[in-house]
């Protein structure tokens, strides 16, 4: 199970990795800095399946919502499980993200604890939930 972090902010990426270590989880972590890079990596098969995507919304080049749009129209990637992890409190962003069938929209409100909770959530999720198997 790969955790694919799509976030332009190094600190958020590091924080997620630290949270993983704290919870003694040994999952593979991959990182893309924006939606375009993420799409490129996914299409190149660089992200080992099964994977869960943790997606930031505000990013350069291709933002999170544009990435979701591209993801859902790509027959090879449309089933991907995506959690949005963002500072955007905007209702429009929230509605738009769920319209693209995200598994959850997590608002990074608190400056502490958040990442532990998020990693905890994702860890529970992948233990209980059956993920689709990619047919190549």
């Amino acid at each position, binding site marked *: 199970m790969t955790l694919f972090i799509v976030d332009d902010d*190094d*600190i*958020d990426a590091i924080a997620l990795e630290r949270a993983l270590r704290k919870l003694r989880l040994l999952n593979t972590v991959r990182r893309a800095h924006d939606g375009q890079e993420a799409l490129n990596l996914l299409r190149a098969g660089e992200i080992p399946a099964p994977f869960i995507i943790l997606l930031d919304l505000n990013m*350069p080049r291709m933002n999170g919502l544009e990435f979701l749009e591209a993801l859902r129209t790509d027959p090879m990637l449309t089933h991907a499980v995506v959690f949005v992890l963002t*500072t*955007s409190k*905007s209702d429009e962003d929230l509605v738009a993200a769920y319209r693209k069938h995200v598994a959850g929209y997590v608002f*990074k409100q608190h*400056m*502490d604890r958040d990442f532990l909770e998020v990693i905890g959530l994702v860890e529970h999720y992948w233990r209980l939930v059956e993920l689709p198997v990619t047919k190549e």
Partner: protein
Amino acid sequence: MGDYTGDIDRANQRFRQVVEAAPNAMVMVDKSGTIEMVNTQTEKIFGYSRTELLGQSIDILLPERFRHQHPHHRASFFSDLHPRAMGAGRDLYGRRKDGSEFPVEVGLNPIETEDGIKVLSAITDISARKRMEARFRQVVEAAPNAMVMVDKSGIIEMVNTQAENIFGYSRAELLGQTVDMLLPTRFHHQHPHHRDSFFSDLHPRAMGAGRDLYGRRKDGSEFPVEVGLNPIETEEGIKVLSAITDISARVKAGERLAEHRNELERSNRELATFAYVASHDLKSPLRGIFQISQWIEEDLKSGDTLSIPSHMDMLRGRLRRMEHLLDDLLAYSRAGRQEGSISQIELGSLAKNIFEMQAPPNGFNLEVAEDLPIFTTLATPLEQVLRNLFTNAIKHHDRSSGCIKLNWANAANKDYYEFSVTDDGPGIPQEYHERVFIMFQTLRPRDEVEGSGMGLALVKKIVETYGGNTSIVSDGSRGSSIHFTWPIRIEGRLPIANAS
């Protein structure tokens, strides 16, 4: 025989009764112009008694100035006998016994009698109608807008002083000419068609509903107009009386209103963007700082002091980023307010100074076109635009050396210069050409290239404040060229924010 004579007498009798009963003055003359018969109406309108007229020359009923031509006209009537109106197109006058004159209309009828051809003239006093016409002219003259009356074929028959004023022609230059002369040339070919359709469905209406109408002055200049059309029935057939209003002032006021509305919409959009930005872009370094402080705490507790210097570096990085964002936001919100004053600038040397002030890394140089204009403008915002473009070109360059060029061309709009700042950096792919002008949009993560994403947004805002526009030319593989237009004369283009 006796019966025959009686018939003639009776016929004569009846003829005299008809003439007597006619509503107009009737005068019968012979070939030499001698009056042979008149009716009571004739006595009334000319003021002579019947006995004073009979046997006299018809000339006594004419103003003296017409008398010498009259025999000639009479001769030509007798040479081509058929009923017709006298003096077509000329104004005719009768002369009363007291010497006063009055306008008349005269119908001529040849009558065959035993003693030869006579002419029976029916004379109508048209003073009342002439007075009405004069009153109509006065009303038209007194109208607050330009009035132009044309006939069915578009020939101008009447104009008022207002029409002379707004079109710049004198009355004499207009009368008898086609109304097309008051229209821009590009409308000439449709106008007869529109006129025909008006004449085929006569009722008062506004001309050209939904279209923008323009008048054309004598000097060739155009101005927006509103035209009301009214059919007028006259003796000579249907005419169109058009009331023309110069609506330049109203159009201008409307444009100004639209400008204000656009400006308001723009600043509202800006506010909305600002709120979004403040909640994300400004908060994100804060969250980072908080995050790092936790790591420092955690790592110190676990005795991992090696990670501390890199944490501290990151921490200061976020603080600097925060400061940059705030500075640039402030610059953005101020952009477009008038700063500095209008002065003459030499763009070439100005650009070189700005470039040197950036302290560009070794290996970077600026080439300016030799014929860059020297002109009078607001220097401060133009400097700000160039500074941001130069900074961008250097900051996003992917090599250790580069050349930045400042060129100019004539813009599509002749009131503007078009300048371009061209670099030989990595280029900007087509799909990002619009995005890069949006506030806080960067093409690379801030952790790679420190930047607020404000530079081009600021450039765009300043340029648009002065009515210009921005665009990018880049194939996305090598080099990009940012074009912007700048008013040649900046007076009158000062931003609305200052004007108020």
